[in-house]
């Protein structure tokens, strides 16, 4: 079943369109910055954008910082909202269930596929933005092979690769929280759009509350609270505190919402 779902994933035109759009944004940004040489001052605009002018090797990280706050969660929510409700809309859900495919198996296969999608999207993003960075900004001055970390020390290319891998995994885990919320809503409604918008509403609400001082007491538990904590991979030494908390928080969200999705789906009348 997992293989079937993965097969369906790579055969879907919309998957490739959304990944394409995801990769396009950093390319556009790179074109503007490299032609104008105007980078946002440190602390403003996307993270790492001020650093890439001197060395393109950090551009994958900059690209991830551009895409993670909005575009990646939207793409994830679109696909996850479609997971069960989309099958219900095309009517294929009933034919899968009477094939028979167990309901639990179906949910697990959908989640594995979503994880694969996020990994695939971020890996492709990192690769395209690496090439973009090399082409647009070059790999630094010859005498100075390393890259300066956010803490001012020098990072070797191996260092960067390892830290990017860590960030990749962290971002994937962060997106699973969104995915779990959207999958849960997808089992509640038969409208994929409704499930997607519902999940996005949760994220927008979370971002809103995060900026609200009065809601400070719940801030550490908001799903988007630690989304950008992977930036700490680029400090020297790595600041593990927020990364660990971020992973822990996402695990809780995934368990709660997948549990709810499972409980709802197991007893649901499939009338579509």
């Amino acid at each position, binding site marked *: 079943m997992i293989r079937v779902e993965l097969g369906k994933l790579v055969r879907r035109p919309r998957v490739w369109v959304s990944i394409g759009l995801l990769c396009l944004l950093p390319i556009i940004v790179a074109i503007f910055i490299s032609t104008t040489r105007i980078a946002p001052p440190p602390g403003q605009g996307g993270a790492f954008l001020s650093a890439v002018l001197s060395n393109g090797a950090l551009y994958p990280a900059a690209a991830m910082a551009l895409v993670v706050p909005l575009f990646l969660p939207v793409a994830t929510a679109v696909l996850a909202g479609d997971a069960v409700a989309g099958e219900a809309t095309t009517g294929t859900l009933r034919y899968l269930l009477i094939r028979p*495919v167990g309901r639990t198996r179906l949910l697990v296969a959908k989640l594995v596929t979503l994880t694969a999608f996020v990994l695939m999207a971020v890996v492709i993003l990192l690769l395209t933005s690496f090439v973009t960075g090399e082409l647009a900004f070059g790999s630094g001055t010859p005498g100075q092979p390393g890259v300066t970390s956010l803490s001012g020390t020098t990072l070797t290319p191996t260092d960067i690769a390892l830290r990017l891998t860590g960030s990749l995994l962290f971002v994937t885990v962060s997106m699973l929280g969104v995915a779990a919320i959207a999958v849960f809503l997808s089992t509640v409604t038969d409208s994929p759009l409704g499930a997607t918008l519902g999940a996005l509403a949760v994220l927008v609400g979370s971002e809103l509350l995060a900026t609200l001082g009065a809601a400070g007491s719940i801030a550490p538990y908001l799903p988007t609270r630690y989304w950008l904590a992977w930036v700490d991979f680029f400090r020297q030494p790595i600041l593990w505190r927020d990364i660990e908390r971020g992973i822990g928080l996402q695990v809780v969200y995934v368990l709660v919402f997948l549990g709810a999705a499972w409980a709802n789906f197991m007893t649901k009348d499939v009338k579509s």
Partner: protein
Amino acid sequence: MIRTEGLTKRYGPVTAVSGVDLDVREGDRYGLLGPNGSGKTTLLRMVLGLVFATSGRIEVMGLPVPRHAKRVLRSIGALVEGPAAYPHLSGRTNLALLDAAGPGSVRRTRKRRVDEVLDRVGLGGIDARPVKAYSLGMRQRLGLAGALLCRPTLLILDEPTNGLDPRGIHDIRDLLSELNDEGVTVFLSSHLLPEVELLCTRVGVMDAGRLVLQEEIAALRAPTGRIVVDSPDAGHALALLDGLVAERDGDRLFVRGTDVARLNARLVGADIRVTQIAVERRTLEQVVLEVTGSGADRVDRADHVDRVDRVDRMPGSLR
């Protein structure tokens, strides 16, 4: 094959299916009749484990459902409320994905099995165009192919000829007869009486969520004990058969008795011309209208048109 006891499904205040005792036997060609909204599809969905019953019991192939649904579904092929496929993929790819998703699918033989069922439903020469470019009839055939993919011993088909042209309907009827001869039990639902009458051996009638009739078609269509005679000399015949004629309707007489040959000889012997003569049988339509009652006013107009139509065609009761 399928037995239910007191099967009931409520959606809030609405009772979709109420106390149904269904009995589909092995080897049956069972037709479930009833107007749209009478609960046929909900009943089918409960048997397939898609919808959970409010109360009552279901047994399929001797095993309780939904507890053992996964086990019995392996040998059931079904079409529920129209076919469905991923529109951007070809029919072949859709069938291959469906096959791979379930248990007991051997990858090595998949292509051959997909080709086999496509041949069987008359889509053998289909190209790689996506399903969204299929006609309604082609989708219906593809849905049937999907149902046959697991080599079922029980076929559960909801309106199987929906969207098909007369030729397609004929093809599907032949296919279902063929499968039934090979030992497949066929359980289909329909609101088309002729379809069920031509194919089925047993019939169940749903009305407002209840199963109001379940019987062999042969028994329902047993002779009524009257003979129908059409004659341009109906007046003379009436005089000759004095006392035997139960009813006269223009040139048509309804004569008590069952021996058609003797009655015919007697009429011809008395120089009375006979254009048609046959034992009177109730049509399935009459039976269904009797048990479902004429209370539902939304069927009145169609009902009336049907009757006019029948007089025009004449052979209604002579078939």
